[in-house]
């Protein structure tokens, strides 16, 4: 796997996009994943390596990526995490 320089701090937006795509499409090969997430292949591979190291995804025998339970939970946690902050803001209603 060509990973180049590893990711030290991932962009949450990219991470969320990859997880969401995998959640919606299930097992997906890297090229299709790069296309549907709009990432360059090299960048996607770096993210997949990082996610695999964290246990968010795994690869099957065809080298297709799929989400682990931790990956699904992480996405749900991410939604809750944002809501924890955005949810507390009381936006005034402008008429």
């Amino acid at each position, binding site marked *: 796997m060509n990973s180049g320089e590893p990711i030290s701090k991932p962009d949450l937006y990219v991470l969320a996009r990859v997880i969401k795509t995998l959640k919606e499409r299930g097992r997906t090969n890297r090229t299709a994943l790069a296309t549907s997430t709009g990432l360059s292949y090299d960048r996607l591979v770096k993210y997949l390596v990082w996610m695999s190291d964290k246990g968010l995804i795994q690869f099957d025998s065809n080298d297709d990526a799929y989400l682990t339970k931790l990956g699904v939970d992480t996405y749900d946690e991410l*939604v809750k*995490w944002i809501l924890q902050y955005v949810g507390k803001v009381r936006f005034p209603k*402008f008429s």
Partner: protein
Amino acid sequence: MTEETLSGKMTEFMTALDQVKKYRELASAMADFTIIVVASVAFFAALHIIVNLLDVFYGYSFIDPGYTGVLPFYGFVVLFIGVLMGIYRVQRKMNSVRLEQWEGTLNEGTPGALKLLQETQWEKTFSDIRFAKLGFVLYGAVKVMAYWMLAFFFFGILSGVIGNIFHLSFDPISLTVIPLVLVLVLSVKDLRYRYDQVGRLDSLLWELRWFDSEFRRADFKA
């Protein structure tokens, strides 16, 4: 707490920011409004001065004395057109603000929400809210003053008519104060609306300041 809840909350968030963008534009359009109104007053004043100077140079009434009484009416018309043009300019500028450009990004769901939050320029947003508040108040004040001037001219014409028919005259203070009171009474609704909106902008500023400081400090652990 689902992705739909997040999307709904983000829609509220971005709609509030859109409103700030619109009011920010109002603040910058206020300068245009003031310039147009002041220019129309200056135009009328210049016209008046020229007529007076011509009177002085020629030593007799340059304009037929019968027409000099009509000058305030022209002043009213010039100012009226100026105010209308100013309001039209403000409305056009406010309507030119492009809203809901975030919709496509938000349709991505959680990733879109994250992107919008990451891309929000907080310091600029805070400064826009402050500017919008100031503009909102000043625009209201300038508008009242413009209406006051209009009412002053109108009342001047009216007092001339009343004076000719009923032989009644108004002192200069009444001529100035009555139109102001009239305009203030008629603008109460608008002034209250402005007061409420400024309060809302203020509370939005506090809420976003809290959010920015909390969200910036927070770190999501994957």
